[in-house]
C-alpha cells in the first residue's frame, strides 16, 4: 500500500493485468507514442501520460499505437474481443465517441443478444470525461448517460485512485463490453492504493459515509464534491449518506433504495447534461420504488442544459460544486412534506 495518483493507479492496473494475461492488449492513439518517428519511443504514453512505460515492458505487439481512425480501431477491438483477445482500447476523450459509436452500441454491445448468447466480448474502452480542464465544448462532456442507455454495455465511473485500480482490473476481467471513464481533472489526485492487484465488483455501490437525514447519490468526481458538502452540512447538524454507485450500468438499485428508505430524502449530483442523465435515472428509480419513504422532493444537482463553455469563469459556473449540493440538501431538509399533501 502506498500513495498513488489516479493516473498511476490506472497504469498499474493495466500493467498487472497485462502481466497476468497475455491476451490483454492495449490500443489507442499515442498510447505509446513516437510510432514511426525518429525520436523517443513511448514519447507520450497517452495524451496525459496514463499508459507511459507500458510499451517498454510489453512491446509494440501488445501496446498498439493506432492511426486516427476510431471506427476502425474501436471496431477492431470489438472484433478482437469476440475472437480471443481482451483488448483495452483508449478513446482518449469520450467526446470522440461520435465517430465510432456504431461499433460500440450496435456491434460490441449487441453481439451476445443478437447471436443468442453465443458470443463473449471482453472489451474495455477507456476514455476521459468531464469538465474543468478549460477544454471547451468538444473535450469536456460526460456522455455516460448515452452508454448507460444502451443494453449490453457496462459503464464504470471510478471516483478515486483506489476505485480506479480495482474497477479497471474488474473491467478487464469482465466478459462483457465495459466503458471505463476516467475523470481528467483527477489524474493527479492521490490516495492509498494497494500495490497488489484487487478487484471491485460491479453493481455494488460504495457507501462513502452514512447519515440520518439525506441520501446523496453522486457520480465520478462528484463523489468528492458531495462529501465536501456533507462535511459542511454536518457542522450545521445535517447528517448525510453519500453513495458512490461506482458503476452506473449495472446500477446498485438495492443500496440506493435502502439508503432512501432510511433517510427519506434524496439529492443526486450528476455532472452530465441534465436531460435523460443519471440524475433522472436515479430519481425515477426512487420515485417508482421508494416513493412511500420520501419525505421531500428529490433534488438534482446538474449543470444547465448548455454545451460546456470555454471561459474559465463560465465553466466554473457550469460544473456542480459543493455550494450547490449544500443548498440542495438544505432545501430538501426544509421541505414540509405533509403540509403540501
Amino acid at each position, binding site marked *: 500500500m502506498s500513495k498513488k495518483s489516479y493516473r498511476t493507479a490506472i497504469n498499474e492496473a493495466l500493467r498487472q493485468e497485462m502481466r497476468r494475461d497475455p*491476451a490483454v492488449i492495449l490500443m489507442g492513439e499515442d498510447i505509446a507514442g513516437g510510432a514511426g518517428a525518429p525520436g523517443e519511443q513511448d514519447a507520450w504514453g497517452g495524451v496525459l501520460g496514463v499508459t507511459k512505460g507500458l510499451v517498454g515492458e510489453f512491446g509494440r505487439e501488445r501496446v498498439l499505437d493506432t492511426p486516427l481512425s476510431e471506427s476502425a480501431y474501436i471496431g477492431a477491438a470489438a472484433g478482437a474481443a469476440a*475472437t480471443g483477445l481482451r483488448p483495452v482500447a483508449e478513446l482518449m476523450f469520450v467526446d470522440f465517441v461520435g465517430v465510432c459509436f456504431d461499433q460500440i452500441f450496435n456491434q460490441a454491445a449487441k453481439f451476445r443478444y443478437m447471436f443468442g448468447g453465443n458470443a463473449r466480448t471482453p472489451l474495455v474502452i477507456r476514455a476521459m470525461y468531464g469538465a474543468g480542464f478549460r477544454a471547451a465544448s468538444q473535450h469536456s462532456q460526460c456522455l455516460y448517460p448515452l452508454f448507460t442507455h444502451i443494453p449490453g454495455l457496462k459503464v464504470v465511473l471510478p471516483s478515486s485512485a483506489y476505485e480506479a485500480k480495482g474497477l479497471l482490473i474488474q473491467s478487464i476481467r469482465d466478459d462483457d463490453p465495459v466503458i471505463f471513464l476516467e475523470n481528467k481533472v483527477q489524474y493527479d489526485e492521490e490516495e492509498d492504493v494497494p500495490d497488489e492487484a484487487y478487484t471491485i465488483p460491479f453493481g455494488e455501490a460504495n457507501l462513502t459515509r452514512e447519515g440520518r437525514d439525506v441520501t446523496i447519490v453522486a457520480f465520478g468526481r462528484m463523489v468528492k464534491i458531495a462529501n465536501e458538502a456533507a462535511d459542511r452540512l454536518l457542522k450545521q447538524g445535517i447528517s448525510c449518506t453519500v453513495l458512490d454507485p461506482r458503476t452506473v450500468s449495472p446500477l446498485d438499485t438495492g443500496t440506493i433504495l435502502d439508503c432512501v428508505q432510511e433517510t427519506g430524502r434524496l439529492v443526486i449530483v450528476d455532472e452530465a447534461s441534465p436531460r435523460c442523465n443519471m440524475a433522472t435515472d436515479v430519481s425515477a428509480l426512487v420515485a417508482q420504488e421508494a416513493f412511500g419513504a420520501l419525505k421531500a422532493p428529490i433534488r438534482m444537482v446538474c449543470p444547465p442544459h448548455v454545451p460546456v463553455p470555454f471561459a474559465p469563469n463560465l465553466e466554473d459556473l457550469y460544473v456542480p460544486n459543493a455550494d450547490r449540493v449544500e443548498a440542495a440538501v438544505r432545501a430538501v431538509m426544509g421541505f414540509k412534506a405533509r403540509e403540501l399533501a
Partner: protein
Amino acid sequence: MQMNRADLLHAYRTMRTIREFEERLHLEFATGEIPGFVHLYAGEEASAVGVCMHLTDRDKIASTHRGHGHCIAKGVEVQGMMSEIYGRKDGVCGGKGGSMHIADLSKGMLGANGIVGGGPPLICGAALTAKTLKTGGVAVAFYGDGASNQGTTLESLNLASIWKLPAIFVCEDNGYAESTASSYSVGGSQAKRAEGFGIPCQEVDGFDFFAVHEAARVAIERARNGGGPSMLHVRLARYFGHFEGDATTYRAPGEVERIRNEQDCLRRFRQQVSDAALLDSGELDVVDREAAEAVELSVRGAKAGAPPTEADLLTDVYVAY
C-alpha cells in the same frame, strides 16, 4: 491450384445450396410467413464459396445484411439458419437475431450485419487476434459497393495496411446499393482505393467460380504468410430485389434475365467442369436434388419449430444474464 473431385463437388454443392436456400426464401417470403427484412444472395454464390473454400474454422469472416451465402459457405448449418430466419428458438441465434444477424462464432462466422460497413473494422480485430496469438488464421470482410463508401470500411483498409494484418477485403460489387447504382455512388474505383491505402487489389469476375477461387487463394496465401492485406474487387449481380418486396424498377428491363441466362455462376461452373471432363452432369444433378431436399427439410423444420419462450426475452444481454 488444381481442385480435386471432392473439392469441386463441395464447391458446387455449396453454391447450389445457397441458390436453393435463397430461391426458396423468395417464395416463402411471399407467403407472408417470414418476418422482417430478407436480403437474398442469389446470383453471387461464386464469391462466397470461391473465397470460403480456402478457409477453416480458425479463419474468420464478417458478412453483411446479405449474409446467407456467406454463412452457408462458411459452414453454418442450413437448418439452424432457416429456423433463425423464421424466428425459432432452435435457430442458430435462438431466434433473437433473424436474417440480418445470423452468426456462428464456432464456425468463424462473426455475423451478418444490419449496419452497412459494420464488418470491416471487426475483421481487422479478428485478424489482429490471429496475428497476436499466432493462430495462422486469416480474416475476411465481405462488403458491398455501397459499403465501400462507408468511412468504417475505408478506415479499415488503412488500419489493415499499416498493421499488415492477415485480412482480406472482398468487395462484392453487384452494381447497386439498394436502388443506387455504383456508377453514381463510387468515385474513382475500388482498385485505386486499395492502392490509395497501400493494399494490392485484384479485379475478379464474380460469375466465374474458378476466377474467384484463384484470386482468393493468392490473397489468402499472402495474408497467411505475413504479407498483409489484399482486396478483391468482385463484380457480380444479385438476382432478386435489394430486399424482398423491392420491385427493382431501377434496373433495366431484362437486365437480370440476361445475366441469369448468360453469366450465371452455377451454369458456368457446370459448363466448365463438364468441358474439362472433371465432373459429369449426372453427378451434378444428384447434388441439385440433394441441395433441394436439404433446403426443403430445413423449411419444414423451421415451420414446425417453436418460438423462443417468454423467458428468452431477458437472457443473453450480459454474460451474467
